[in-house]
């Protein structure tokens, strides 16, 4: 069909996956560029989704596989866009592909290389709560289900020694001779779907993150509670490995802040905290769970009902108040804080076994670099700017380049998917015009 019937999608999370499938199903050739070894994004790391309590990876994986098998989608993992020329309808996109050091045509995903690899580094997919090897699969449902060797930690690639993986790989798939590749792709339009990163709350020292063992972030909690997590689905206190009998969540950590952190609301934390609170109660029925909130933002379809369910069926306690200082009891690593219940004005103290910080969710840290390459504007928080936010919420400051998902602004999964389909439609219009000549 020619270059006009091609689209480059940047980012392999749910937004990029949905956009790619929508386009590919309509006969458009899609090049999905993902910088990590697997697609899936942050959604693949969640245990469940709100408000439906679906298993996140269970509903995501079929889409991931569809992407992989779709005849119209070229999946470029370990890849990044490095240069863009041209304009709407006629872009030339340069994509740099990093070597996987594993031959994609030979690897059968058996995992022997990883089991033999002597290197251990913090596992990003487990939020650093456990380790992985240099030769690794990002997570069990990775797509492509092909191992890759992390060039920053591999002993051979950094120091010229080892190569144990090669010795044990029966498929002969290890290939240290692989080199970075570069391709120039002709595309009618580009869809940006770079997703989100999490805010590290260490600067907010009053909350004790990284100072007190039993203070964790919400995404860390998801990994601690999910079946494929570092504790295989057992929610255990980091300090003593026991089940927490009491858990508190603190909302708006680094969000809605005019001092440290970000001024905007991350949109989904009230809901994901509710979801996580339900999960804790499901895992540990005796646990007392409290959510310390500032405003309960349950604005979407089924949201308020979900919160009510958490409160009435699962006994989750909701308190409108924000702790100022978290204290650790040296004797049992328990955490305590004073708080004002702002509804009643009472000052009370609470003690919990585990404290969860619901931190701000930010646009991808790579957006700055990408925006410069794409020649588009970002706002002061690194969200992609819409010249007409009202009537063209998926546009960017360059014609032919569209954005969807969290990189456009804070939102949940259903809205992300809706936007992905929207970006598809706008993309299609660019193509239609280009093909007309």
């Amino acid at each position, binding site marked *: 069909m020619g270059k006009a019937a091609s689209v480059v999608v940047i980012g392999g999370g749910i937004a990029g996956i949905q956009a790619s499938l929508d386009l590919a199903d309509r006969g458009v050739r899609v090049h999905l560029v993902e910088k990590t070894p697997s697609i899936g994004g942050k959604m693949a790391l969640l245990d469940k989704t709100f408000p439906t309590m679906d298993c996140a990876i269970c509903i995501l994986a079929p889409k991931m596989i569809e992407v992989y098998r779709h005849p119209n989608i070229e999946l470029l993992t370990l890849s990044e866009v490095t240069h863009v020329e041209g304009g709407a309808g006629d872009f030339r996109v340069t994509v740099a592909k990093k070597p996987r050091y594993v031959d994609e045509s030979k690897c059968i995903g058996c995992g022997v290389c990883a089991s033999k690899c002597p290197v251990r580094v913090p596992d990003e997919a487990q939020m650093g709560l456990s380790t992985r090897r240099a030769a690794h699969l990002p997570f069990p449902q990775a797509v492509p289900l092909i191992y890759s060797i992390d060039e920053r930690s591999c002993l051979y690639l950094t120091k010229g020694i080892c190569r144990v993986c090669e010795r044990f790989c029966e498929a002969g798939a290890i290939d240290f001779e692989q080199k970075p590749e570069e391709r120039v792709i002709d595309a009618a339009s580009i869809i940006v779907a770079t997703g989100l990163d999490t805010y590290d709350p260490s600067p907010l020292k*009053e909350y004790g993150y990284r100072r007190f063992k039993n203070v964790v972030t919400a995404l860390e909690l998801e990994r601690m509670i999910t079946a494929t997590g570092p504790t295989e689905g057992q929610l255990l206190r980091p300090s003593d490995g026991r089940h927490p009998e009491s858990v508190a969540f603190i909302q708006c950590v680094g969000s809605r802040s*005019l001092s440290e952190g970000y001024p905007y609301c991350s949109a989904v934390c009230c809901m994901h905290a509710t979801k996580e609170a339900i999960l804790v109660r499901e895992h540990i029925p005796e646990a007392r769970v409290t959510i310390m909130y500032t405003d309960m933002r349950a604005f979407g379809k089924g949201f308020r009902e979900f919160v009510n369910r958490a409160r009435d069926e699962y006994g989750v306690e909701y308190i409108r108040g924000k702790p100022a200082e978290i204290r650790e009891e040296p004797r049992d690593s328990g955490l305590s804080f004073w708080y004002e219940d702002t509804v009643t004005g009472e000052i009370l103290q609470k003690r919990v076994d585990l404290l969860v910080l619901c931190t701000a969710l930010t646009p991808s840290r790579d957006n700055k670099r990408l925006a410069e390459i794409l020649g588009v504007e970002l706002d002061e928080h690194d969200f992609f700017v819409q010249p007409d936010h009202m009537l063209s919420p998926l546009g960017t400051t360059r014609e032919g380049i569209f954005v969807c998902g969290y990189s456009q602004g804070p939102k949940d999964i259903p809205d992300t998917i809706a936007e992905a389909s929207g970006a598809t439609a706008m993309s299609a219009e660019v193509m239609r015009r280009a093909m007309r000549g």
Partner: protein
Amino acid sequence: MIKLPSIIQRGGVPYEQCNQCGKCASGCPAARYLELRPRKVVLMVQRGKIDELLRSGFIWECTQCHQCMERCPRDVTPFDIIISLQNTAVRAGLPFPENLTTISNSIRSRSLVQGDQEVFDGDFESYDRASLGLPDLRPPENMEAFREALDKSFGWDLS
């Protein structure tokens, strides 16, 4: 919008930014024992209930620990608001803690909050600066000028 004067925050203390999260009251040590809730003070200012605040007892309950202004995520500085209200109440001739007058008088008369005290050890032996070998420290050279300057400071614009 009412301006709350402060000579540190010349444009007035920024109370509009408060979203009532309550972090200030959560950390306030006075709140644990008394009525003061910095969050509520800010809310009342936002609603324009200045007179009620100036006449309240609780604006005097502040321990001046600065926790509220250190931790406020909206840069509201409840402490500056409370001080601004306190100063305004004094200027308006409304009741305030007597001890402040005692201290103020002492500073006016001898430049310090109190005169040299006699202290005692466990055996009820008494000591003073001289008997402990401490140097004799002199007050301001010109006490009249000092007092004049002190009095003049009460006439400054609060903002």
